[in-house]
């Protein structure tokens, strides 16, 4: 279990979803930039150009990087969640410590057929670890797998 050997990538639709969310922000930003552009006299593009750069970063680069850095694995009865572009975090939760499991879907996630899996432990720090961007049926399958492992342990 070192580096990112057997990490499973998230569902590719998650990348599209993050881009869509970023695009909504970008539209608001562009509207603001356009107003500023018309309000400020002078050369065309003095506000548009930097705004376009920010939009390109938000909509194209960042979701790609975020998607590339995220991953999970379910080997050896442990859930491992890796995430973070700038600040890396690499969390391991053994199934035996899971208290309960959530599978949640927001409105956008429903549209894309995605789901977020959240496992809760009894710890007071890092008490819940969530893993967004799973295909809904994958999330359900993972929940069943973890639940089966818990039941086997406590029998």
């Amino acid at each position, binding site marked *: *279990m*070192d580096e990112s050997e057997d990490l499973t990538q998230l569902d590719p639709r998650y990348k599209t979803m993050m881009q869509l969310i970023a695009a909504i922000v970008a539209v608001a930003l562009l509207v603001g930039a356009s107003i500023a552009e018309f309000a400020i006299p002078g050369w065309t593009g003095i506000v548009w150009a930097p705004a376009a750069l920010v939009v390109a970063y938000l909509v194209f680069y960042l979701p790609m990087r975020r998607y590339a850095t995220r991953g999970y694995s379910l080997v*050896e*009865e*442990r859930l491992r969640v890796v995430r*973070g572009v*700038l*600040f*890396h*975090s*690499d*969390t*391991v*939760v*053994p*199934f*035996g*410590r899971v*208290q309960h499991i959530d599978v949640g879907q927001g409105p956008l996630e429903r549209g894309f057929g995605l789901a977020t899996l959240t496992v809760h*432990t*009894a*710890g*007071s*720090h*890092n*008490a819940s*670890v969530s893993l967004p961007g799973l295909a809904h049926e994958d999330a359900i399958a993972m929940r069943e797998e973890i639940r089966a492992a*818990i039941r086997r*342990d*406590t029998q």
Partner: protein
Amino acid sequence: MTVREPDYRRTDPKGFIVRAVMMLAQLVIPLGLAAVTFSDDGDFSGKLAFAVPIIAAMILFNTVIAYLQWTKLTYTVGTTDIRVESGVLSRAARSVPYERIQDVSLEQKLLPRLFGLVEVKFETGAGGKDDLSLTYLSESEGERLRELVRNRREGAEEASEPGTEKAPEQADTIFAMGPKRVFTFGLFEFSLAVVAVIGGLAQQLEFLLPFDLWDVGEWEQRLAGPGQWLAGLGPLAQVAGIIIAVAMLAVLGVATGLVRTALREWDFRLERTAKGLRRRRGLLTRTDLVMPLHRVQALRLNTGFVRRLFGWHSLKIISLASDSGGANHDAVPFGQMDEIQPVVGVTGFELPPAQTNWQRAMPEYRIDKAVLAVLVLIPVTAVVAVIGSAWFWLLPAAGLVFTLAEQWWRWKHDFRALGERQVYSRHGWFSPSLAIGSRVKLQSVDIRQGPLARLRGYASLHFGLAGGRLRIHGMPIAEARRWRDEISRSISSADFSELLETKGAPAT
């Protein structure tokens, strides 16, 4: 709730008296204040005629409410749960199953204690306010409830062993503090904060004192009274006055420390019983608490700057249940290492062995932090020196020096170690603290790296711990991964519910 179970009980009727007395006590302070304000302007007796009926009505009203509340508060000890129903206008019913009750603690404040009453708290691990509590029951009823809850819990698992039930609890005291120890403890509890508060109060409330605390001249006069010769000494008497003022504050500080400690720790007794560690302490408010051994998640060993020199340490237990506000239970508030050692042994943990391989944080981690501080604070110092007035730039400069010294100091004195069964993290030298976590009882392991950390190859390890926090900073990334793998292997070897149920036996 149409059918009420036949065997519901009320709390002790004397509890009603206690509540009434407490309520009156609460009324006395505002009334006293009101009396002081009104009595200032003569015509007191005229106003009294108005006040008396109002006050009488208030007292009557409150008493009636307290009585109604008492009649409406009932509890039922069922076969699977304890149920409490309360409320006059809006009713609330709460039920707690026996399996979820972490432990039962009894608390006696001064007034209920005079009446032989206890407050019974059922700790569920839900934290603070959501716990179930019954105010006030008779002492015997409290004890009975506690035994009952415990036996119900045991009963679920040990019904097949009739021999063990209700065996008279034999308890061996593993740590106790007599009056002498409490006194010594109190001396070390001298706190500058208290002195500052008292100093401030003295300034605020000096009109209450018969003399002026800060008036050096008056002190001179006072000194001049009995010792006429002092008057002739002039400046020396002034110095004497200041010394007396400081000494008075110091005495007050020590006295507060003594009183606070005595109130809290009087007749401290920690016993090992069949059900876990039982702790009783307190002079006016007496608390009686049982910590089940298998719920001990981690230990924390602390000491102070001065008390370290005399070999005094304190031992705290981190567990799921909470201890009147704090997440940690005091197991040994003030003791020598050879007294703490057996207590640690009883909890199933062990102190780090002598050959433990202690390791420091990576120098890069501390250097980076120091460099960051330099990058932020030197420009700040420069800016303040240019635009700020006088010597203000000394402030950020001092901050910088402090940060640098702290980073160096912590690099030198913070250590980590991974034992066969335990994780150790030690830091500080002035007031060193050592955290001992059981490898099996951790909940999750998290490796964190910021951008700088990735560049320089170190990482922080955050452990999920039930009821506390355990973090180790500045480990080489490879070692962090190795620790994580080993620890998560240990965690996987036992299920959490198993850990909660194997009574007494320390996880191996």
